[in-house]
């Protein structure tokens, strides 16, 4: 590894940092409802999810041959451009985490890369037709599909078990939920760690450290798996709170219906070649399960904030990516170092701000009563 340039080392480190944020941003997708219903203790939930994400990274053998699934022209992506794109993705992930908003890490990465390639290699490097079919359409359809599934499933779960005793019902659905949540975690590991492996592998290929068409070296798989596993274990508690407690109130039958719907949508879309974003699927399921039990039981103001964050993810990450690319591409290695230091400073600032009102494993389920909550958020709910 001694012959890697400083630039390549910086890109690899940044890719792993993105992988880490990807992990803690998405813990909520698998575990938020299990934590909210008490099916799993918060610390146990993130441990299971972290281990399964790590395992998933090792299990997926698909050769990582693309950075962006064809949204940008990979051949134009130099290490500086990839670096700038990653910075855009990381900073947007940190901003949404600070606000407790679940947003898609894939969209953040695509957005960052689109901005960076646009500025660094020209507008022809961005395949805009792919943006509609691979980003916008799945983003709009996945919450609807998952929401419909969860709504019907929730209604039927309550209908079928309404004459049963409460204790076996609660216990049964909690067990079922644990299993479906674990499946989501494993599927997440096989998909999302792959993105970082692809970025690192293609960086190594572009600098001739690896032969074209090479599979990710073993150390790349291990590092990417560890980064996403540790990120997941760190737990994005703010996002878990939003997904599990703020969007709607979830009881065990609802948690089971939501997790099962998410798993069904994620697995069928992955195997039918129509990739959907895990974050959007899970948010749709949670919303649907709220509607399926008590029709008006969804806090629409929170749902609206989430929808706004989804709309902003691509342009916001693209803007940061573009600004970073301006400096990193034209400023050479010095430019990259400057952007790296600025990004690091912003990450530290985000962490410092988060410590003012920390959300942890201990208080993730304690949310202020409605009035205070409205005042704190500065919004009104239905």
């Amino acid at each position: 590894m001694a012959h890697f340039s400083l630039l390549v080392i910086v890109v690899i480190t940044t890719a792993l940092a993105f992988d880490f944020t990807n992990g803690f941003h998405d813990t909520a997708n698998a575990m938020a409802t299990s934590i909210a219903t008490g099916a799993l203790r918060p610390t146990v939930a993130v441990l299971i999810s972290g281990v399964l994400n790590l395992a998933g990274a090792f299990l997926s053998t698909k050769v990582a041959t693309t950075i962006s699934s064809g949204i940008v022209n990979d051949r134009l992506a130099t290490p500086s451009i990839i670096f700038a794109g990653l910075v855009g993705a990381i900073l947007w992930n940190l901003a949404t985490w600070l606000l407790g908003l679940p947003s898609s890490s894939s969209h953040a990465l695509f957005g960052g890369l689109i901005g960076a390639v646009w500025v660094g290699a020209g507008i022809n490097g961005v395949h805009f037709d792919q943006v509609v079919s691979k980003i916008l359409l799945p983003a709009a359809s996945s919450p609807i599909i998952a929401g419909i599934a969860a709504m019907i499933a929730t209604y039927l779960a309550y209908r079928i078990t309404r004459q049963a005793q409460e204790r076996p019902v609660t216990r049964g659905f909690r067990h079922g939920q644990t299993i479906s949540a674990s499946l989501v975690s494993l599927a997440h590991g096989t998909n999302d760690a792959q993105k970082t492996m692809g970025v690192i592998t293609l960086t190594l290929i572009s600098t001739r450290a690896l032969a074209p068409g090479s599979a990710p070296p073993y150390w790349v798989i291990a590092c990417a798996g560890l980064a996403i596993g540790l990120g997941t274990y760190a737990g994005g508690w703010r996002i878990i709170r939003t997904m599990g407690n703020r969007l709607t109130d979830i009881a065990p039958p609802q948690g089971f219906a939501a997790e099962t719907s998410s798993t069904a949508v994620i697995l069928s879309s992955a195997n039918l070649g129509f990739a959907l974003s895990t974050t959007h699927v899970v948010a749709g399921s949670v919303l649907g399960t709220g509607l399926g039990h008590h029709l008006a039981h969804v806090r629409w103001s929170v749902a609206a904030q989430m929808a706004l964050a989804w709309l902003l993810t691509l342009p916001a990450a693209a803007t940061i990516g573009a600004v970073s690319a301006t400096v990193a591409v034209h400023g050479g290695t010095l430019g990259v170092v400057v952007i790296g230091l600025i990004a690091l400073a912003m990450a530290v600032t985000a962490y410092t701000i988060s410590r003012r009102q920390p959300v942890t494993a201990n208080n993730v389920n304690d949310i202020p009563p409605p009035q205070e909550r409205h005042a704190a958020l500065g919004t009104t709910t239905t």
Partner: protein
Amino acid sequence: MHIDWNSLGKVAMISITIAVSIVIIFSLGVLALSHHDTNTDHNGHATLALTGAILCFTTCATVVLYSIYLIIPQLHH
């Protein structure tokens, strides 16, 4: 611009059908288990309920195994 409506429709139909079916089967299992707990005095009912519960949960377990098969690429390549 090419939008694959066919795949999208398939994903929607298949995932909604599977999710709803699993939740129905699992809920029936939970219901049967609850009947088993309340009917411990009457052996006939209790056994029937327990058999039903086991049948439901076995079906769900099979689907879980199939999901793991789908997730792990080594198993289907």
